[in-house]
């Protein structure tokens, strides 16, 4: 009985912590909502619709399936382009990080490319690939590629030499160094790059959808803009932000799970 009580107390205490964390995170949103409502009372509705007008827009978009349709379209686009970016950027980043010649050859190009935003490439990409999923995939790929690549290079280059020496002196074969020492040690940086890449890819996709697409959350916002439906514009913005939050949360959970070994070794 005692064990059960202690167990339950532990669960309740853990749940209390999560609940507290959730509530703290909710406070800024509540303040924002109250502020928005207060300001909307003083402004014309075409400048800032009230929260209830936006909620009304949400319910219409959900009931007609419009919001789901556009959200799914955006998610499908981002999945393809983002995974492709990881597939190329991580191995390339490892190669550049490990091999000096590759670094000397490719680094100038990498540094130049990373300053070119996806949005600048849209006119060219649309001409080459049309306006379907192919073009969106390329735009998203470009958006995610640089941050993942650069973080991977940085992670690999930052692996402490002591780890490598320790592994070698304890009998590790050279071929195991990559998979058992270098990649695991570089993973935290790679994950940072992957998270950044995801947010850049998401933004690139929204921009692409605004300019040349028939579906997606970016298209939804531009459509609402043209029809001067500010409430739908705000609805689109909130949806984008919310999905971004969910994606980030999923990412962090996966990161925590894969980097369990860091627990107790770092501040957070």
């Amino acid at each position: 009985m005692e064990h059960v009580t202690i167990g339950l107390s532990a669960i309740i205490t853990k749940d209390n912590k999560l609940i507290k964390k959730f509530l703290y995170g909710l406070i800024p949103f509540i303040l924002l909502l109250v502020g928005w409502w207060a300001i909307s009372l003083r402004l014309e509705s075409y400048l800032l619709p009230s929260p209830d007008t936006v909620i009304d827009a949400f319910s219409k978009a959900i009931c007609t399936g419009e919001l789901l349709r556009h959200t799914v379209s955006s998610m499908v686009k981002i999945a393809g382009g983002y995974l492709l970016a990881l597939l190329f950027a991580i191995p390339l980043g490892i190669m550049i990080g490990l091999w000096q010649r590759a670094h000397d050859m490719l680094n100038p190009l990498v540094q130049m490319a990373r300053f070119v935003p996806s949005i600048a490439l849209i006119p060219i990409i649309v001409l080459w690939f049309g306006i379907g999923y192919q073009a969106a995939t390329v735009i998203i790929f470009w958006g995610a590629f640089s941050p993942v690549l650069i973080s991977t290079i940085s992670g690999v280059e930052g692996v402490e030499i002591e780890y490598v020496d320790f592994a070698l002196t304890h009998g590790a074969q050279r071929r195991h160094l990559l998979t058992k020492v270098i990649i695991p040690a570089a993973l935290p940086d790679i994950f940072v790059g992957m998270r950044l890449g995801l947010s850049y890819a998401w933004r690139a996709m929204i921009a692409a959808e605004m300019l040349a697409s028939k579906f997606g959350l970016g298209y939804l916002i531009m459509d609402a803009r043209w029809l001067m439906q500010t409430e739908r514009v705000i609805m689109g913005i909130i949806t984008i932000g919310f999905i971004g939050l969910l994606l980030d949360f999923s990412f962090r959970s996966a990161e925590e799970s894969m980097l369990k070994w860091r627990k107790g070794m770092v501040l957070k």
Partner: protein
Amino acid sequence: MRIKNILMIMVGLLIMPFFVSTSEAVERPIVLALQNSQYAAPIYVAVEKGFFKQEGVNVEVRSFPSGSSSAIHEGIASGDLDMGYVGLSSALIAITRRPVVIFATTSVCEVPIIVGLNSGIKDISGLKGKKIAVSRRGTWSDFIGRDLLSRYNINPDKDADMVMIPMPERLIAMKNGIIDAAVVSPWLAVKGRSMGISKVLVLPIEKFWPQTPGIVYIARNELVKNRKYDVKKIAQALKRSVDYINQNHKETAEIVSQKIGLSPELALEVVKSILWFSDLRKDKIRMVADALYKSGCLTKFPDIDSGVVPLSN
């Protein structure tokens, strides 16, 4: 004492703009937005020939790239701009959602439908199943494109693929086979023909919406109320421009060619191809509003009587 002096100077500097701006507000120029295109010809002419000055109105013209109707609507809504010209469909949407009125027109807004030279499309029925580039929902080109297809029993959402491609990229997209047809502006139709990429399939305004104001001028209600005579003078100046254009195609083409980077010959062709008039016909506008409402672009029917206020008569 020194700190006190510094503080007084700072307070003086802070309140000075309020006095300056107050006095400027009385003679503040009216900010008129234009989109750099053939349809801005009346404004180009009015500036070049001094019609605004002759009418006694102080106008500051601000240029935007062609296709900037959204930016102009938003500029007017925020107060950065006082007035501007936009397509009729977006103007009708605006009068239902924002405190603006339509006060003048200068032309139809012809939107030629072009097809690739080797597309094999001979008439409008040939557009069935094809990819047609238009602008966004609610724009004039989208409205006319859909209206045209519907008249030939082609459902634009089911029997054709209406794709949004920015206007400047439509010719290259056609050349690369990405699209089969496009709804374009007159200058782009002329350019497409001169580049050997496209040919005009139909001029839908001439055929189905004759004498319909397509390019209209909108202004904030508040401006029309507080500075009605200035707005009226601007409308009068624009009417004079329209009369000038109709009598002086060649001179107008020279002005337009300098402004939008077309050769004088192509500019002349474009200027001649547009029907310029200043009669803001409410009956025609009502017909367009009806079609827009039925298509779902308008969530409520606009009050044409209060939203359309002809000031050039």
